[in-house]
């Protein structure tokens, strides 16, 4: 099972994505979002990216999703919609599950997936071993490079998030 651990985690990832994109009530969407966040963290960690996985858990699940959960709990309705309560939601969920099952069978039968392009597994993050300063990993160096070479990306992303907040406030403000 351990050789297929990434594959199993990715299947759970996709199933939980199908779970919230079939649009039950936001509370249940948040529930499967937690599951998908945790499983995504596991996938990243299997490629050697321990820092980024911990970031996902701490910041995404422990920060943003908690705030989302609290605001949804304040705004929720008396009988929130589950996956089985509404025919449409259940239909979309089952359709997504069916497509995922078909894809899983396709992947298990053949070595590589060739639907639109050929895809036969990804590599890990590289680990460099210099003589004097020890071992360092490519993934955490990438995070460091974001703040040194990639200052423009930080500025643009930060500005987008700020404007996102302004836009959301403006849209929901009403007259």
């Amino acid at each position, binding site marked *: 099972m351990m050789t297929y651990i990434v594959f199993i985690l990715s299947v759970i990832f996709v199933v939980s994505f199908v779970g919230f994109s079939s649009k039950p009530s936001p509370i249940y969407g948040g529930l499967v979002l937690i599951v998908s966040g945790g499983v995504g963290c596991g996938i990243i960690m299997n490629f050697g990216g321990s820092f980024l996985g911990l970031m996902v858990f701490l910041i995404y699940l422990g920060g943003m999703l908690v705030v989302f959960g609290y605001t949804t709990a304040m705004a929720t309705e008396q009988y929130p919609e589950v996956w089985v309560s509404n025919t449409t939601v259940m239909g979309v969920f089952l359709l997504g599950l069916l497509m995922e099952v078909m894809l899983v069978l396709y992947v298990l039968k053949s070595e590589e997936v060739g639907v*639109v*392009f050929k895809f036969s597994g990804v590599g890990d993050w590289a680990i460099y071993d210099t003589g004097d300063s020890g071992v360092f990993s490519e993934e955490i160096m990438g995070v460091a490079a974001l703040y040194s070479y990639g200052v*423009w*990306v930080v500025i*643009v992303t930060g*500005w*987008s998030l700020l*404007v996102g907040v302004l836009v959301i406030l403006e*849209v929901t403000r009403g007259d």
Partner: protein
Amino acid sequence: MNPLIFTTILMTVLLGTMIVMMSSHWLMIWIGFEMNLLAIIPILMKKYNPRTMEASTKYFLTQATASMLLMMAIIINLMHSGQWTITKVFNPTASIIMTSALAMKLGLTPFHFWVPEVTQGISLTSGLILLTWQKLAPMSILYQISPSINLNILLTMAVLSILVGGWGGLNQTQLRKIMAYSSIAHMGWMTAVLVYNPTLTMLNMLIYIMMTLTMFMLFIHSSSTTTLSLSHTWNKTPLTTTLILITLLSMGGLPPLSGFMPKWMIIQELTKNNSIILPTLMAIMALLNLYFYMRLTYSTSLTMFPSTNNMKMKWQFETKRITLLPPLIVMSSLLLPLTPMLSILD
């Protein structure tokens, strides 16, 4: 809307397009598109009624789908070429997906259905920004990937757009929908010549933006959104009727007005590349466009239908002063003699 917030959001729309046009990394281009989309939603929703909200939702959904397709094309390109720099897209699958995504952003057929509905649901000024500024960013990306675009797909979309833009505008009396169909047709002309000579695409974009700016500003000046309302401008500002006539004929592509310049150059470029049937078809289908422009000028500038006396008065608020209007009118009608200057563009 709070003026400070409005300015910030408008500047972010500009910043988004600038980031798309200036970046050399595919991810930054995607971020620029998303920033542009996010910031224009409150501008589309400036008035809070269900129509504007419906229009902004439709715009958001279609553009977000197009951004998703763009991201997929970027990732396929990354997988096959191993780098994120903007060059022509070498993989044919990624190229086709990217062309479809950019066509969705521009409003080319078969992805044109959102353009009339969104343009109709928003105010005239927002419609102006939507139909002119928002076309710059996707067109700049198409320009940069133009050596690798699949000719069949792009030409099919272009010719169908000219047909749909002309044919669909025939039954419209609402001015914003007429401008939307005109935009679809002009985008078709622009993308038809993209593979042969991308400079002409940029020329057509420039002249189209000038003409559309002029038309929208004339509509804003006379506060009219329907053909009936436009036909009463003789009462408010008689000079505007002549200006509407000239600008509309320029949009239809009649010589000696400047709207003829891009069409002439495009037809010439296409015939130089040994395609004769295609420009003939395009020119014939541009006649449909000309027909509904002519109908607008007929009811506005050329005739005054018999009506009762109270219909002859047009209710008006204080006249809006649009400083940019006179130079725009001159530029959108009198630029044709400058055509030999195009030789500097090489």
